[in-house]
């Protein structure tokens, strides 16, 4: 069936918004991971009669799958070259693993404190870089104020990963992206580095501008 015939008649009479998706509106997103299916077992009976969208060609249910990793891959990708992004990230993970094992071998005393799992480190790093607030410019009486505004969880994760990547891309030509990304992730995972500082700066700015907070609603 051609693309156009599937689109035809998608406009909803009530809202007037035209749906550009190939799937009809009553299709639901697939639950790809098996443990997530088991988690939501009670609600799944409702889905018995509802058609499901096809799983995307990047989704899988292996031990290597990780939501944060997949999201970061999307942000690394440039011009649809996701294969390259994948190799870059796996290289960065390899570097992290190498440096951490080196540290583990050099460490004296408690060796349990050194984490060598790159995925865990990435999650820690993102968690450490997440901002709580943001400043937006709001114009009141001809003067623009920097007003602190709370942000959603989704956006906070987006900003954290974006900052990590920005820091990794800001480098000398000789240094490769995986190398720099590995450093940034390691730094951020330990609560140091430029990205965590950037987050702290933002928080400090929000704190300084707390007097303007009421401009958000008045």
């Amino acid at each position, binding site marked *: 069936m051609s*693309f156009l015939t599937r689109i035809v008649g998608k406009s909803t009479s009530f809202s007037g918004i035209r749906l550009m998706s*190939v*799937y009809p509106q009553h299709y639901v997103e697939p639950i*790809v991971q*098996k443990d997530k299916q088991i988690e939501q077992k009670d609600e*799944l009976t409702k889905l018995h*009669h509802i058609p499901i969208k*096809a799983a995307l*060609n990047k989704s*899988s249910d292996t031990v290597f799958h990780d939501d944060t990793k997949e999201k970061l891959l999307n942000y690394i990708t440039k011009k649809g070259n996701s294969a390259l992004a994948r190799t870059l990230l796996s290289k960065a993970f390899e570097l992290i693993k190498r440096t951490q094992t080196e540290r583990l071998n050099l460490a004296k005393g408690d060796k349990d404190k050194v984490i060598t799992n790159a995925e865990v480190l990435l999650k820690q790093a993102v968690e450490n870089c997440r901002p709580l607030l943001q400043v937006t410019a709001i114009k009141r009486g001809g003067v623009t104020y920097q007003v602190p505004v709370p942000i959603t969880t989704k956006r906070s994760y987006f900003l954290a990963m974006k900052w990590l990547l920005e820091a990794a891309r800001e480098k000398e030509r000789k240094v490769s992206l995986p190398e720099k990304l590995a450093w940034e992730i390691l730094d951020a995972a330990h609560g140091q580095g430029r990205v965590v500082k950037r987050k702290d700066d933002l928080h400090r700015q929000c704190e300084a501008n707390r007097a303007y907070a009421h401009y958000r609603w008045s």
Partner: protein
Amino acid sequence: MAVRVFGVNLIKTNRNLLQNACKTPATTFGHTAVAQLATEVTVQASPAAVQKQKVSKAMRAYLKRANEHDEFMKTQHLEFQIGKRHLANMMGADAETFTQEDINEAISYLFPSGLYDPKARPAMKSPEEVFPARKAAEFDETGRPFHSMFYTGKPNFFQLLHDIVEETRKLADLEERMLRRGNKPDENQKLEMSGFQLLPKDQLELVLVESIADIEYSNFTNSMDRLIASPYAYKSKAFIERFLKPLLDQSKQLEVPKPKIDEQGRQFITTYECLRKTARADVTIRLPGTGKISINGKDISYFEDENCREQLLFPLQFSEMLGKVDVEANVEGGGPSGQAGAIRWGIAMSLRSFVDQEMIESMRLAGLLTRDYRRRERKKFGQEGARRKYTWKKR
């Protein structure tokens, strides 16, 4: 005989006769009630005193039309019976036991048609099906309407709304009384709505024999929802069920094929036409196997990309059949990701024959059994791409 050949309705000339014809007072719904004919409400039933009174012009016109329609339907019926007999003779079957299914078969044999739309193909159906039911007289011979809501224009629909509200009030009263007595609704009898859906608008229109607007349909759904939400909804189950439509179980909709046996005594299933983007594949799965994969004669290294290999193994790993079956695939067209997607779908579809129902449902929920219809979206003129517009500067 109501025969449509190549989409031409032979009885078109008689259409206008039916424009305003027939049927029962508006208080009853349902196909059977609606299908009654107009002649049941005729003048002869009225006493002499009424007969002397003037019969209204509208009534007279209506009666004339109804009679004509009756005659017309009678002849149609007769011709249908004769046609059926002829058809049975032609097919060498017994005319008495010739069913509608046999008729359809005979027509598709005698008038083979390559038309895509089934509605456009030649058909022979009973006149009741060809000429859908219309409303009967809604007024008596003096022109007085039977139904109190006749002047709303949609008496059946508004009566239905009234009925729903009445039921809701009844349930609310019941709830109040039960609360006072300290009783609770029976949890076991709770109305199960997960497999059902309210009648869609077009079907509700058929039941009501009235056309309704979108907003009126939403009024209907809202009031029905309110009725169903009541904790004692099971008390008016019979009423609610009249407007419910059972939903099909999605994972049972497609029949799972039975595996065949090959020369070596292994079970195998072949899925043809596995499509994704512009790739096309056919996939064979053999049980028991050792996890061998061959794609166009090569092994999994046919795909250089890591992601594509992962996609191939995804359904096998998900259904825990990795290493238990052999996969053979022939694939052509498209790029690597499209080809991998096509094979993934083929493997998932074939694996249904070797796993239990629970796993099939699980695979369906994971989106493995859905054919991915998404294609590249075309570029539009006046735009830079499919969605992106050209840079525009006012000055």
